[in-house]
């Protein structure tokens, strides 16, 4: 939870031109209350101790920075290192943020927890921390995602939470967020909304980033220890952008490290059928923040396309928009096919089945590794494990389980 010298967002929640607080009036007070609470607690020693001890004892942090020997050989250039967020309890980076936010909820005396989820990882991570504190928990999930992530739906239910399938709009992550916001407007007095990415109105993008930046902080010390230098590049997939933001944030002022976000190219960015707003979007307002957004010529939000439920989102966290425009980070996209190929390749070469989201980051190594020689150290943020995606991949491969 270190603050970076960039010192963003500003007091209104803006990262340059992006961010802000665009919500119905009923939520304004709740956001102010959250900001006040967070500002008070983030530097409080007792709170920090509790956060880090939960990360250690419940999540299993720190996660290893692992040398990917066969993948490195496969490309034959720089060393590839994997930040093993897939080894976290519940199987992805999402738990880092929920551990922090549930402490805020507890401190604020909220008895009811809500969250949205796409791939289901944030739903599982939220249900797990809510169960641990005995809090009522409701997870909103697009009905299309309920189908393609059925394993995670059952995990959420096993953890005692309620899953609400959302049928409106495109029935994916964006619509789950709409519905969670509507729930929050209605039950704002007793409910804490744990947003799962660096999206939404201020202060959420900041809070989620700060809790997740434990990943980047560990990377700094692990890089020193393992290869005595800062990495040449960090590669992470970007949907809303929480795993990337957590890895990137502590490195923002270290210009020697390239920060590369990989968006979901779906059928290919040129086809328009994708979920890559930083590559092919225009600034707009969705879910409380101004950021790059996939929208049509009438200002309506476009439906997205990605094989990965967790990246299937038309918006992106405002700080990523700022990092893009300021030139500090690069944002690229890979297609469904490329991600699927990487999914299989990493599984076979490294003995690790990555999440389909993460497979996007791996797929970009095909291009990136050509730019480096053997002295380079490249980190891939292995944001989650792929068990949840097995049904999807089997179906694509024509295999009946």
């Amino acid at each position: 939870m270190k603050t970076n010298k960039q010192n963003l967002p500003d007091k209104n929640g803006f990262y340059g031109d992006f961010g802000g607080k665009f919500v119905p009036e009923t939520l304004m007070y709740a956001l102010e209350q959250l900001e006040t609470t967070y500002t008070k607690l983030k530097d409080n020693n007792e709170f920090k101790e509790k956060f880090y001890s939960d990360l250690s004892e419940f999540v299993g942090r720190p996660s290893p920075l692992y040398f990917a020997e066969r993948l490195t050989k496969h490309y034959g250039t720089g060393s590839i290192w994997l930040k093993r967020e897939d080894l976290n309890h519940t199987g992805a980076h999402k738990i880092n943020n929920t551990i922090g936010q549930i402490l805020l909820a507890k401190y604020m005396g909220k008895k009811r927890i809500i969250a949205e989820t796409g791939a289901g990882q944030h739903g599982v991570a939220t249900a797990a921390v809510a169960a641990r504190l005995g809090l009522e928990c409701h997870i909103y999930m697009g009905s299309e995602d309920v189908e393609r992530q059925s394993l995670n739906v059952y995990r959420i239910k096993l953890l005692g939470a309620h899953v609400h399938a959302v049928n409106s709009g495109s029935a994916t992550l964006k619509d789950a967020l709409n519905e969670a916001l509507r729930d929050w407007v209605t039950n704002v007095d007793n409910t804490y909304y744990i947003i799962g990415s660096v999206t939404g109105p201020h202060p959420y993008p900041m809070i989620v980033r700060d809790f997740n930046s434990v990943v980047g902080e560990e990377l700094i010390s692990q890089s020193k220890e393992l290869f005595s230098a800062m990495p040449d590049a960090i590669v992470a997939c970007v949907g809303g952008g929480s795993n990337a933001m957590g890895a990137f944030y502590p490195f923002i002022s270290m210009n020697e490290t390239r920060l590369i976000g990989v968006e979901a190219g779906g059928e290919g960015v040129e086809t328009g059928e994708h979920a890559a707003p930083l590559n092919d979007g225009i600034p707009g307002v969705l879910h409380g923040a101004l950021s790059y957004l996939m929208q049509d010529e009438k200002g309506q939000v476009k439906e997205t396309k990605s094989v990965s439920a967790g990246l299937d989102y038309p918006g992106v966290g405002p700080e990523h928009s700022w990092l893009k425009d300021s030139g500090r980070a690069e944002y690229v996209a890979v297609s469904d096919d490329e991600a699927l190929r990487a999914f299989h390749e990493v599984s076979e070469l490294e003995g690790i089945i990555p999440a389909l989201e993460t497979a996007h980051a791996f797929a970009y190594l095909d291009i990136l590794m050509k730019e480096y020689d053997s002295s380079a150290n490249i980190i891939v943020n292995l944001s989650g494990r792929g068990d949840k995606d097995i049904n999807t991949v089997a179906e694509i491969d024509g295999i009946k389980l």
Partner: protein
Amino acid sequence: MNRLTETLANLKQQNKKALVAYLVAGDPDIETTIDLMHLFVEAGVDAIEIGVPFTDPIAEGPVIQRAHDRALKNNISLKDIYSMVEIFRNKDSSTPLILMGYLNTFMFHKKIIEENKNSAIDSILVVDIPGELNLNDYGIKSSSINTISLISPTTKQDRIESIAKNSSGFVYYVTLRGVTGASNLDSNEISNNVNEIKKHASVPTLAGFGIKSASDASLLSKHSDGIIIGSSIVQMIEQNSVTKEFDRIREYITEIKQAIS
């Protein structure tokens, strides 16, 4: 003078309460929306709030969400809505018209809003911007339209003051914690908050969200300068969108109008 400001001032002078009715532009189609707007006025509506369809209307309950979806199937844009209003104005040059929608759509059509041909639109209500701000703060400059700000039961006192002062046209008091069409009105809370708003606002205070029956209407009009009805009408539009027989809406508006007079 702005039609909305004028109409509300006249009503106040006559000690009458304002009735504002809502529909979504293009639900079920533009022609029907124009017919319904005229029907509203004939039945006694003082001002019309036109919902601007958006893909992600986070403040709306299921009834109005479905109306947005129906309108979007017809590809309705803000440009189409201004053309629709032009047709409406051929027959009705006096009824105040308010656009209600989400910031993204308005930001995308700055020019049309700034132009506001023949001052056809009187006011804009943006659901998802903080009440202290208005369209000017987002680079949309128009002297012919005023901005209606929302105040809700969770708005704290210091903000009530600054929002009430910022609102032109009227202050929109959201009567409940929830989305449009919900039903959990708390009469005491409403009267306390509206009284607080009135201390600071130079414009009238109207109450909306959650008004279903004539008795809801009657109760809320006692505390406020008028009321806004939406979901119940949109539901009737939905139920009759095939036959386009809207007599029930006429009766309903008449009933509500009586309840608040």
